[in-house]
């Protein structure tokens, strides 16, 4: 061991506290990097694991008609090492199902003959029983156990089996290629097959989805040509739905060792391979091994293997991890750099001494570098251990929730430590340490021997400082120019100002660490704000009750669109879709018989239909109430209604740019796509009574009266939140019908028009449905000037602060609430309202109860309703809330951990730099005190300096943190749109408060240390 090494080790030992602080910094850096990378690899491993469980480990699927050729290519590829494992699935005909069975199992029972390890490769695992082992055995999808007559392991089933044949639809002629076949559920055959022609009588293999010209718009239907009957012994069931088992026409049944004559159609080989690094490499290898064959890649799996790195969600994770890693590295560089810089600065004298006895600059640099390496050698392994330990603990606590969120509950979120991640974490930390030590080492080697020995090293004035000092010597200027600081802080402030103006370092380290503290805290803040907003938006408005049944009837005279709109209406609050309102006209043909169509007649017809639907739904409600375990909460009907709202009633929500569902018209009033909720009378009366009004006032059928909801959800340009929509009572006009040249207007859209009839502004644009319109759209807009419009005044008697729970809390626009009794006379322009019934369910059983309710509703509507059901669904609010809460908890815990860790780094850094900045100057302070600087003046000086550091640190800190926030926002919004960029002001305030507190504590400690120092000792303070 040479002298310098000995010296280094001795000085590390001598400065125990500093050494420990430095090592702690390195440990923290390594631990954080390890944690970030390990979280990343663990997530990847979980998703990979989940994908293999769900879909199998196959990486590519190769198709071919000739099995022997395919198999021999596969064998050669295996021998050549191009592929590892191979499993085969071969079409073995399609079983015919009875009409009842079709309700449960789909159009056919597709049969597939397997060979190879399909459990691993295709994730075809029996959930009960076992896989078939010999000819005549079969594994069925799980629903066979329970549906219909029920089948058990050991039973035999006999099915007519045949081949699917294309049949031209009535009135159609010609042929199609595979590529042209509309994908009607199943997946369409591949490129090779794409050019094959399908004509009348073509036998269809399993790669072609179910052909139904009426549904898919093609020219073919299909039928099953039964060729024989087969009997199988059921040996097992499977209950997951992997890629290999799902077809548009039914869940596949698996058998094996079938006779060759039963194996007709398509053959599929599922292969795995090793040593491929990209999607292109997988494709290339498949092309080499199976020339000219159609292949599908298992993209989901390849992504999680890291072979495929595109895909928005993955980019988001990677971007977030990258931003966090950069922030962490910067934080740690700062922490470690400061520790070393201060360590070197404190020992300048020592280095001078060493230089004076002949140490070369190289040796001095090496001494510091060696110190760094020793610190790294201790800190890095410790950091890796701490990081992995931290992940283990965190994952143990959050793992199940995380796994649930990512849909991988079965797999679980387990720690997955990748050697490359550890290597990267260690490498980055060592690089951080070396980088941190570079400047101090260089500085150490430049120490002037004489100055160092004389204790003159603190030649702190800068060149500009010297020029300033020269100017200040003028007697007239002596001790002048105190400025504000001088007035507030007196002589101490003046000294601080001089120090700031002339000093070389200007408390740079302190300012930088302050800036960094702001950046770190705001990074944490941005992250939690963005993620928090996401979970909030994901949560959305919550409806009353644990489960809800949503239904809508369709007007069979209105072509197209109903189903989609129903889905929208059910998924969102009412009024979300402008096109919903007045979705279709009520039987215009019937009306037209009685002479020319009048607006009154249209309105009357709509009212009549609405009243009838309301009656049916009322009966449905009575029926649903009898469902076991379903505790009735209430029901309502709602629909979108175009409203003209006087300016005096409208809240800010419609006045902002990019307002929701409406805006100001040229005449000053507002065009709004609102919604009307018909609430069952009892519940409505309770709301009215709560508002201090008389329910009887709302019963007059000639004068519709409503309650208005004051707030609605919307995007205020920054966040998705509650906004004021209605602020005052008054009378609004509902557009109930429109006539255009004797034609009934289908609906009104609210749109901004730069050159409307009355000038620029919002307005109502009437439209009619036109499925095969010239422009390809579904509707044709009409000139408002040519349209005759009927309106109904609705008096808003009171504006509720908050919507009643049964109304779904908040919508996204103006919401009016009227009693259900009004449905008998007024549709207010709504044609097919959405029916929403809410129920409570025993805890944990909301899903089941919801299913029961939907079934009961389906049966009732089928048997009793004179309308066609466009949409019927159930909403499991209780289940959604539970999963939202889980997500919110995970996000919160993650953000909290991250914030706490970053705050610790930031505060440690501020403390380190500020206290050391003071302690390094204690000789200077002692001089001042020895010539009469009082404690009060001393404090004033330090406080003034701190204010200056803060001011210098905060501005760049805030700017930099805005940049980091923006980068994070870019990363997050990459996969999730609708998130506006916003500054987390609460965290800005928190950051300011915390840094101010840290500075305060540091200064107090630093001053305590300086004062505790005996002036005598400080003055004498030998530099060596």
């Amino acid at each position, binding site marked *: 061991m040479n002298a310098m090494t000995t010296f280094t080790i001795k000085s590390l030992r001598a400065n125990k506290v500093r050494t420990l602080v430095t090592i702690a910094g390195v440990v923290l850096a390594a631990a954080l990097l390890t944690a970030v990378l390990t979280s990343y690899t663990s997530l990847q491993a979980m998703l990979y694991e989940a994908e293999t469980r769900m879909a199998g480990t196959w990486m590519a699927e190769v198709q071919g008609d000739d099995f022997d050729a395919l198999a021999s290519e596969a064998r050669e590829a295996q021998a050549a090492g191009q592929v590892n494992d191979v499993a085969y699935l071969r079409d073995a005909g399609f079983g015919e199902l009875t009409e009842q069975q079709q309700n449960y199992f789909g159009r056919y029972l597709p049969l597939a003959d397997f060979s190879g390890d399909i459990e691993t490769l295709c994730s075809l695992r029996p959930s009960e029983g076992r896989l078939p082992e010999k000819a005549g055995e079969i594994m069925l999808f799980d629903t066979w156990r329970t549906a219909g007559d029920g089948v058990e392991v050991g039973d035999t089933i006999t099915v007519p089996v045949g081949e699917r044949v294309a049949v031209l639809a009535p009135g159609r002629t010609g042929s199609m290629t595979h590529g042209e076949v509309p994908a009607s559920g199943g997946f369409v055959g591949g490129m090779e097959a794409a050019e094959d022609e399908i004509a009348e009588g073509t036998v269809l293999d399993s790669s072609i989805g179910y052909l139904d010209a009426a549904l898919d718009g093609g020219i073919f239907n299909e039928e099953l040509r039964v060729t024989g009957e087969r009997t199988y012994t059921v040996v097992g069931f499977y209950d997951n739905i992997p890629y290999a088992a799902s077809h548009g026409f039914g869940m596949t049944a698996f058998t094996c060792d079938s006779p060759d004559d039963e194996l007709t159609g398509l053959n599929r080989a599922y292969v795995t391979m090793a040593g491929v690094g990209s999607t292109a490499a997988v494709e290339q290898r498949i092309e080499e091994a199976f020339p000219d064959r159609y292949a599908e890649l298992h993209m989901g799996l390849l992504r999680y293997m890291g072979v495929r790195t595109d895909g928005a969600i993955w980019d988001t994770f990677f971007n977030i991890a990258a931003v966090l890693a950069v922030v962490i590295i910067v934080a740690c560089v700062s922490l470690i750099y400061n520790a070393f810089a201060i360590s070197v600065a404190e020992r300048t004298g020592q280095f001078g001494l060493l230089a004076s006895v002949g140490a070369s600059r190289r040796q001095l640099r090496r001494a510091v570098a060696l110190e760094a390496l020793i610190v790294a050698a201790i800190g890095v392994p410790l950091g890796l251990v701490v990081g992995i330990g931290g992940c283990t603990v965190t994952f143990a606590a959050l793992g199940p929730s995380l796994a649930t969120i990512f849909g991988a509950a079965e797999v679980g979120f387990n720690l997955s430590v990748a050697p490359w991640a550890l290597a990267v974490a260690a490498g980055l930390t060592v690089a951080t340490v070396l980088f941190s030590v570079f400047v101090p080492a260089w500085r150490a080697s430049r120490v002037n021997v004489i100055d160092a020995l004389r204790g003159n090293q603190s030649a702190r004035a800068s060149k500009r400082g*010297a020029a300033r000092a020269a100017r200040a010597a003028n007697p007239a200027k002596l001790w002048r120019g105190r400025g504000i600081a001088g007035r507030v802080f007196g002589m101490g402030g003046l000294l601080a100002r001089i120090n700031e103006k002339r000093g070389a370092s200007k408390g740079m380290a302190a300012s930088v660490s302050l800036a960094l503290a702001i950046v770190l805290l705001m990074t944490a803040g941005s992250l939690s704000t963005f993620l928090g907003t996401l979970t909030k938006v994901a949560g959305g408005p919550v409806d009353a009750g644990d489960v809800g049944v949503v239904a809508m009837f369709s007007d069979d005279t209105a072509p197209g669109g109903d189903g989609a709109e129903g889905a929208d209406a059910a998924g969102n609050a009412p009024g979300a879709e402008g096109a919903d309102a007045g979705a279709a006209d009520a039987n215009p043909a019937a009306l037209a018989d009685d002479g020319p169509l009048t607006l009154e007649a249209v309105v009357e017809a709509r009212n009549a239909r609405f009243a009838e639907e309301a009656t049916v739904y009322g009966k449905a409600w009575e029926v649903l109430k009898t469902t076991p375990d379903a505790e009735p909460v209430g029901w309502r009907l709602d629909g979108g209604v175009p409203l003209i709202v006087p300016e005096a009633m409208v809240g800010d929500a419609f006045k902002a740019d990019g307002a929701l569902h409406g805006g100001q018209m040229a005449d000053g009033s507002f065009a709004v796509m609102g919604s009307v909720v018909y609430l069952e009378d009892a519940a409505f009366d309770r709301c009215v009574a709560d508002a201090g009004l008389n329910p009887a006032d709302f019963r007059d059928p000639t004068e519709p009266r409503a309650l208005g909801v004051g707030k609605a959800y919307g995007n205020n340009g920054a966040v998705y939140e509650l906004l004021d929509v209605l602020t005052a009572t008054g009378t609004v006009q509902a557009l109930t019908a429109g006539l255009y040249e004797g034609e009934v207007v289908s609906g009104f859209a609210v749109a901004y028009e730069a050159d409307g009839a009355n000038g620029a502004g919002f307005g109502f644009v009437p439209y009619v449905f036109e499925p095969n319109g010239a422009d390809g759209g579904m509707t044709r807009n009409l000139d408002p000037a040519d349209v005759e419009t009927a309106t109904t005044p609705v008096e808003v008697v009171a504006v509720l602060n908050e919507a009643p729970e049964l109304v779904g809390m908040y919508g996204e626009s103006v919401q009016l609430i009227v009693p259900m009794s009004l449905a008998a006379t007024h549709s207010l322009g709504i044609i097919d309202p959405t029916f929403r019934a809410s129920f409570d369910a025993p805890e944990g059983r909301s899903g089941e109860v919801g299913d029961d309710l939907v079934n009961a509703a389906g049966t009732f509507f089928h048997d009793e309703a004179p309308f066609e059901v466009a949409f019927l669904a159930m909403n499991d609010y209780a289940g959604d809330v539970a999963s939202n809460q889980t997500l919110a908890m995970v996000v919160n815990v993650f953000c909290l951990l991250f914030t706490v860790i970053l705050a610790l780094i930031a505060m440690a850094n501020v403390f380190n730099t500020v206290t050391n900045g003071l302690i390094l100057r204690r000789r200077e302070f002692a001089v001042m005190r020895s010539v009469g600087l009082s*404690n009060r003046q001393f404090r004033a000086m330090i406080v003034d300096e701190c204010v200056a550091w803060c001011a210098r640190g905060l501005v760049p800190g805030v700017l930099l943190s805005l940049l980091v926030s923006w980068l994070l926002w870019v990363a997050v919004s990459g996969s999730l749109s609708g998130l506006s960029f916003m500054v987390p002001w609460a965290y800005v305030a928190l950051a300011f408060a915390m840094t101010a507190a840290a500075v305060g504590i540091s200064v107090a400690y630093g001053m305590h240390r300086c004062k505790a120092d005996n002036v005598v000792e400080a003055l004498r303070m030998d530099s060596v």
Partner: protein
Amino acid sequence: MDILTVSHLTKIYGEGEAATRALDDVSFSVQEGEFVAIVGSSGSGKSTLLHLIGGVDRPTSGHVLLNGADVYARSDEELAVFRRREVGLVYQFYNLVPVLNVVENMTLPVALDGRTVNQDRLGGLLDRLGLRGREGHLPRQLSGGQQQRVAIGRALMNAPAVVLADEPTGNLDTANSREIMQLLRDSNRDFGQTMVVITHDEEIALAADRIIAVEDGRIVRDERIRR
């Protein structure tokens, strides 16, 4: 008239077995205008004595009376004021504030006291100290001798009751040492400035009116030099 009286001054550093008796029951007095040299080997306690007189340290026991007032009866704040007005300190390593220029360093005690700088006195001192033309220089732009002259200027600026100098020439070459000594001697003679100077340079000591020798925290010799 006695301007400075030190009575039974004792200073113990540390506690228990580690306790070091830096000063042990030291008593003497200094007359106004006197030039006293304190000599002794290193560690004899002479610097401790000087700091106790200067009000930058507190004694374990005993009293220091300057201008008839007990130095250590004052609070810390009062002590700071005392140091500004009544004492001028000169150190071996100059101890100038690095960011302040020559005149600012010299007038720092006046400024700390919130008083206006007496430009005549400042000008006179600059001339006498040979610092004319260097008023705006920062300490690092000056030689060691010049820095020490600034320190002396700072000590004299307030016309304190006593100037205390701790090895003022210890860091200087012979020529500079002589010059500094001459400056101290001259200010003593011309302004009647009371001086207490620590040195172990016999030649310098011999320029004083009186030599007090300290060994192991005690006064072992106290003699007036007759000229």
